[in-house]
């Protein structure tokens, strides 16, 4: 347990490191990626402007710098496990950014991101509880908890990856989902994991400045898998698994709708029928094609065509609403604990 002064000081230090490393490195990364020709078209805009990608290495640099400082300050093994899991997820994404991998690659390779959480807990201890926080109580499942970690990490990583369809959505969504997760970790988890979560929030805030509509850089798979896997690792280490899922519901819903439609694990680009149609006025409309997969964006534009910025705003509204549901769940758990 840390005292209030250390908590505030360490919190300010790691948040500042994460935020400023990213905000200062991104302009140089944009110039460097553009010079190297690492550009992809921004599909929903007139003339399809070319945007540099990926920002994952810069996001990792900011988060890793902050987490390493936090580890040196606290020597807490959970902090080490979180940053190692994050780095593995980044590596998986970076491979996918560099060469087009088959649909199964990301979910399978992301299993490796669970290894630091499991192995460091087995050999050192103190990474996570062997019980699942189910809002209404904790369920002590020492044998089942390890396979559960191997399920959670690929899901959270791919869930954030799959919602990265419009300018600013992945980073903005992480910012909103992190607020209830941080609150839950502060109440039901540990001080050290709470501090380890701050660099993710501040990394997303710094990155959002360049990722928001109209984007000046894209995160790439390395950035989105890093965001998602770190979110999952923090939910596990911070005893906030179900609260984490609830705060992530719109993204979970998006993945679920897609998988329930196509009934197999494939990349979005491999699906022939598109869920939305880009109209002449650059508004997005829902596809009427029966074979097109269901996605969150398709449901949002089902009532009528919207431009990219408006769709992003609707997703943020939904994310804010689910953040409130996550807060309601925290309140329920807190009330039960007090009884």
């Amino acid at each position, binding site marked *: 347990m840390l005292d209030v002064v250390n908590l505030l000081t360490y919190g300010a230090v790691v948040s500042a490191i994460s935020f400023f490393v990213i905000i200062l490195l991104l302009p140089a990364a944009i110039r460097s990626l553009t010079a190297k020709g690492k550009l992809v078209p921004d599909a929903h805009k007139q003339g399809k402007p070319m945007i540099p990608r990926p920002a994952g290495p810069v996001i990792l640099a900011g988060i890793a710098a902050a987490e390493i400082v936090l580890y040196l300050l606290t020597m807490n093994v959970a902090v080490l496990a979180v940053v190692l899991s994050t780095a593995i997820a980044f590596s998986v994404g970076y491979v996918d950014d560099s060469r087009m991998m088959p649909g199964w690659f990301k979910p399978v390779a992301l299993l490796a991101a669970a290894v630091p959480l499991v192995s460091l807990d087995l050999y050192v201890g103190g990474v996570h509880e062997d019980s699942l926080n*189910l*809002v*209404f*109580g904790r*369920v*002590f*499942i*020492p*044998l*089942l908890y390890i*396979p559960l970690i191997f399920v959670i990490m690929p899901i959270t990583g791919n869930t954030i990856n799959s919602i990265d369809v419009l300018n600013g959505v992945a980073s903005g969504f992480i910012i909103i989902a992190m607020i209830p997760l941080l609150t839950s970790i502060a109440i039901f988890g540990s001080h050290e994991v709470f501090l380890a979560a701050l660099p993710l929030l501040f990394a997303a805030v710094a990155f959002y400045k360049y990722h928001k509509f109209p984007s000046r850089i894209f995160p790439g798979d390395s950035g989105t898998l890093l965001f998602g896997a770190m979110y999952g690792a923090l939910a596990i280490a911070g005893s906030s698994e*179900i609260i984490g*899922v*609830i705060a992530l*519901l*719109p993204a*979970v*819903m998006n993945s*679920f*709708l897609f998988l*329930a439609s196509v009934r197999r694990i494939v990349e979005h680009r491999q699906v022939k029928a598109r869920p939305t149609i880009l109209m002449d006025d650059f508004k997005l409309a*829902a596809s*009427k094609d029966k074979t097109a997969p*269901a996605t969150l964006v*398709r*449901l*949002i534009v*089902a*009532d*009528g065509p919207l431009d990219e910025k408006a769709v992003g705003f*609707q997703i943020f*509204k*939904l994310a804010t*609403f*689910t953040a409130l*549901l996550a807060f309601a*769940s925290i309140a*329920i758990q807190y009330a039960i604990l007090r009884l």
Partner: protein
Amino acid sequence: MGFGDLAIFVVVMWAMILAVAAFLVIFVAPIDVIMFNGQAGRLTVSVVQAAIAMIVVIVLVFGLSRMKRIYMQRKLG
């Protein structure tokens, strides 16, 4: 209108997740006492707990899938 429908969809998902969580806490967690009178080994209890949890999650996914179909039919015809 559009946001309201999506919000209802999300609230139903939230309620289903909480219902599953409550079921797991009330019935599955103390299963060694309920089913085995506290006599079973940890591995047996874990296998039974895993089997019940998987069935419950499959039911949840089936429910969500039905909900998705109804919603899509209403929205996109």
